[in-house]
């Protein structure tokens, strides 16, 4: 397999945590990796090949113009490595918009895909994570795009989480078909008319925000604005509840003692909800596999992202999406 191109300069912890994660993916899982960035700043790469790139796109830079003007940026070079057949996939924890723009502009869209979408895995207490898309690539959407998001999400849910027959839901403010904005109502009609049996999936109608972490739906489709708000709401909510919980554990000696007894039972849950376990969001609809990792990604998140990228290449995710939207 061709190596996974890793943007070594992208993210709050770049380059050292990114390089460490890349080394771990290579050394522990045997995944071929090529680093992209300023070779003299990467430290000990453990013998990993490096594609030299002199520029770094800042986290707050304008995505479109930075990709166009900074031709020698690490994430642009990573996308070019995929386009030029030197890498099988790209992973970046850098500027989300610029990562998406470089993947789109350099590798191109899969034929038939109107708009690429960002798919994020949302873990719940039990069962496989729910795939939410679009999580922020397209703030404004047409109803037909949501149908493609549903098709791509179903393919991803099957490939990534082994969900044999994904159940697809449309995010709305009520389960009844007539509920929601004009976009949601139009999308409902289009989704309901799709021959889902040929897609190996089922459309189960509208779902609500409370279903995102449940077991009733595998793929939740929405526009990028709503999807991003939903995702950030969940993240903020989880963070605040965990902080409050940890504070309560320390509130009295009895609580502290009890929490120590509970800790072994809570650790698997922590691992399940830890975003690092999933590596990042997947950009669906471009000709190359592209993982957009969280800006705060550390060694573990990066190693997992590379591992997922490699798995998606082996499973021919791009080919399967092409077949689904054709």
């Amino acid at each position, binding site marked *: 397999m061709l190596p996974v191109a890793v943007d070594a300069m992208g993210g709050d912890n770049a380059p050292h945590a990114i390089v460490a994660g890349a080394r771990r993916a290579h050394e522990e899982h045997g995944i071929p990796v090529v680093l992209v960035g300023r070779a003299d700043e990467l430290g000990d790469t453990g013998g990993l090949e490096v594609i030299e790139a002199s520029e770094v796109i800042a986290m707050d830079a304008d*995505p*479109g113009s930075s990709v*166009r*003007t900074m031709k020698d940026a690490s994430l642009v070079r990573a996308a070019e490595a995929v386009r030029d057949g030197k890498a099988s996939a790209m992973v970046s924890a850098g500027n989300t918009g610029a990562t*998406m723009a470089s993947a789109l*502009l350099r590798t191109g869209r899969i034929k038939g895909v*109107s708009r690429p979408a960002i798919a994020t895995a949302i873990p719940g207490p039990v069962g496989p994570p729910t795939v939410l898309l679009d999580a922020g690539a397209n703030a*404004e959407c047409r109803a037909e795009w949501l149908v493609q998001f549903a098709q791509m999400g179903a393919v991803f849910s099957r490939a990534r989480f082994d969900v044999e027959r994904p159940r697809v839901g449309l995010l709305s403010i009520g389960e009844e078909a007539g509920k929601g904005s004009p976009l949601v109502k139009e999308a409902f009609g289009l989704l309901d008319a799709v021959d889902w049996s040929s897609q190996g999936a089922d459309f189960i109608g509208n779902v609500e925000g409370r279903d995102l972490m449940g077991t009733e739906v595998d793929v939740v489709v929405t526009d990028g604005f709503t999807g991003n708000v939903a995702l950030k709401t969940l993240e903020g909510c989880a963070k605040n509840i965990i902080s409050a919980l940890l504070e309560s554990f320390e509130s009295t000696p009895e609580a502290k003692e009890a929490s120590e007894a509970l800790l072994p039972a809570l650790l698997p849950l922590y691992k399940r909800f830890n975003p690092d376990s999933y590596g990042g969001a997947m950009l669906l609809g471009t000709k190359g596999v592209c993982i957009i990792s969280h800006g705060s990604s550390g060694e573990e998140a990066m190693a997992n992202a590379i591992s997922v990228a490699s798995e998606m290449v082996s499973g021919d995710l791009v080919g399967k999406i092409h077949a689904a939207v054709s």
Partner: protein
Amino acid sequence: MSATIERDEVLGIVRDRLAEILELEPSDIGEGDSFQDDLDADSLALIELVEAIEEELGERSIVLRIEDDDLEDLKTVRDAVDYVVGRLG
């Protein structure tokens, strides 16, 4: 610039490339169409278009760099064609 190109050819390039990017038929794209209001082309689609135009002109030995600052003035297909023709003139 080492080659020349007529306005109709530029229109053809813009229309074909835009059709490819937006998954439309070239005949569905009118010269007076607004990128945003009529064609639902977002900012990334416009950048895709700009890069595609530069690439196709390059293949015809015509060097043109479309400035990012000029992009916000390009509201319609006609604006884009006039801009390219003007820059090449």
